């Protein structure tokens, strides 16, 4: 049987004989699997970067476990496919590596480079604002943590208070004047 969507934990084989469920249909499975893989391709990279950012530095196995825990087992990556993704991010200058040894075992830790941090701020800002703007369409509430982050009104680059206090008056991505965002952050508004 072909590979099913990973997050589907159970699949009733009897149903295949009866042909009653959508998952017994090839066209449905193909469509949904393709859609999910397209969706996950971008999101998984962002989620991996989010884990690395929150941990400071992290290695493959730890990143996968952290992803499972923090997404409540919803975002499950094919374990072997994480490493090519990490390598690609390293080649792109977004991640850097350092090596630790645990006994004889070598661990390759990944951390964001300064450029990688900027990339992460931008794509996480874009993703967050997209989620917020789409929330109404799906009847869900997305509450932005406006006391922690603000977003460039022009390009959605994400800034923390610390970023803005580094006398940053113009958005590092698009050059938009953002000095007043610090006041918004202090007020806890967006």
């Amino acid at each position, binding site marked *: 049987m072909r590979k099913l969507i990973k997050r589907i934990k159970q699949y009733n084989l009897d149903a295949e004989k009866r042909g009653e469920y959508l998952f017994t249909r090839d066209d449905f499975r193909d469509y949904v699997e393709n859609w999910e893989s397209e969706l996950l391709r971008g999101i998984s990279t962002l989620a991996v970067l989010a884990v690395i950012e929150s941990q400071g530095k992290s*290695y*493959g*196995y730890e990143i996968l476990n952290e992803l499972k825990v923090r997404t409540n087992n919803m975002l499950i990556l*094919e*374990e*072997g*496919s994480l*490493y*090519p*993704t990490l*390598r*690609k991010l390293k*080649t792109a200058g977004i991640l850097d*590596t350092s090596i630790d040894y645990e006994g004889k*075992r*070598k*661990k*390759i830790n990944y951390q964001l480079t300064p450029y990688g941090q900027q990339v992460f701020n931008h794509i996480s800002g874009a993703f967050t604002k997209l989620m917020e703007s789409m929330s109404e369409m799906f009847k869900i509430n997305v509450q932005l943590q406006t006391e922690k982050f603000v977003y460039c009104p022009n390009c959605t680059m994400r800034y923390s208070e610390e970023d803005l206090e580094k006398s940053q008056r113009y958005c590092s991505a698009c050059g938009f004047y953002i000095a007043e965002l610090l006041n918004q952050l202090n007020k806890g508004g967006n």
Partner: protein
Amino acid sequence: MSEELNQTQIVKEFLKEVKTRLPGWLKDDKKELKDVLSELEGHIWEKSEEIAAGEGVQLHHIQQAVHSMGNPRDIASEYKKRGTPKLWISKELFPSYIKVVGIVISVIIGLNMIAFIVDTVENGLRTDLLSYLDGIFSSSVGVFLIVTIIFVVLSVEGYLPENFKKSKIKTEIGSIPSEKPRMVLKQVKPPLKRGELLAGAMIQLLIGLAMFSEVWVYIPLVEDIGVELTLWIKIAGIYTIVGGVINLIQSMMDLTNYLAQRVLMTLFTIKDLAFIPFILQLSEAVLSVPAINYISITDPDLFSTIVLGFKVITGFVLFGTAVGFISNIYKIVTLRMKYEEYLRYQES
């Protein structure tokens, strides 16, 4: 003890499966390859320990951990997905692609222009411009197709322009400040270089195609070389194309797959050997060219000088082929030794 051996064996098998399918550029970068494999191996052992939940790791824990890694083919193919897709050729390789197509087509146009000018000077305005344009067009299409296929294959394999630049090691050694006299490492070159194989493949394919498609009909003075010589040159063109294809396959494969590389090198050598009778036939066929035939009647002395000249040239070509044959055999025999010597140099 045998349990432990089996466990290690399973992990090694999995890593071997991945390694075999990794793209060539990654296999060439030994440090990167080592990191990639040790990362996967570390993951399997850690996962096995997690599955074993504090008890000793058993064989079935390892099997489960290996299974959860996914298909080795899929993992390896993920490493190939590099570069930004742009048509069929990646955005990163596109400038090099345009450059190569531009250079080769410019050479074709340039040669045809020179031929046209010479032809016009010799024959006046009777020269058939259309046949030149046709020649330029058909050669350009052929060249365009070959170069495009090569670049599409390189893009699919995830090559980036930096994979064809000089090795990092040389740059690092070169950049050490030389205030104190330092030990100079004797530079060891690899017996096979992907870039050289690829360049050789492209040159052979282009020349082979030119020979096969009778491009000389557009070149003044040699446009009429007779049926016999035309046939032999076309056959020589096929030989050259075969050589190009062998080099192309070699360049796309793992350079440390000694068996496969040796088989291909042997095929290349056999191709060269089989070419010897054709060289002899070619030298005979040259004498049947109408212009030379004409000389045999009008000026027998000049004709015998030409015959001697061709014999000397044939002798040189045969000598070159024999030397090439011995050199190829030496390369085939010493391939592994030379490559391992190169790897040791890289590690040092």
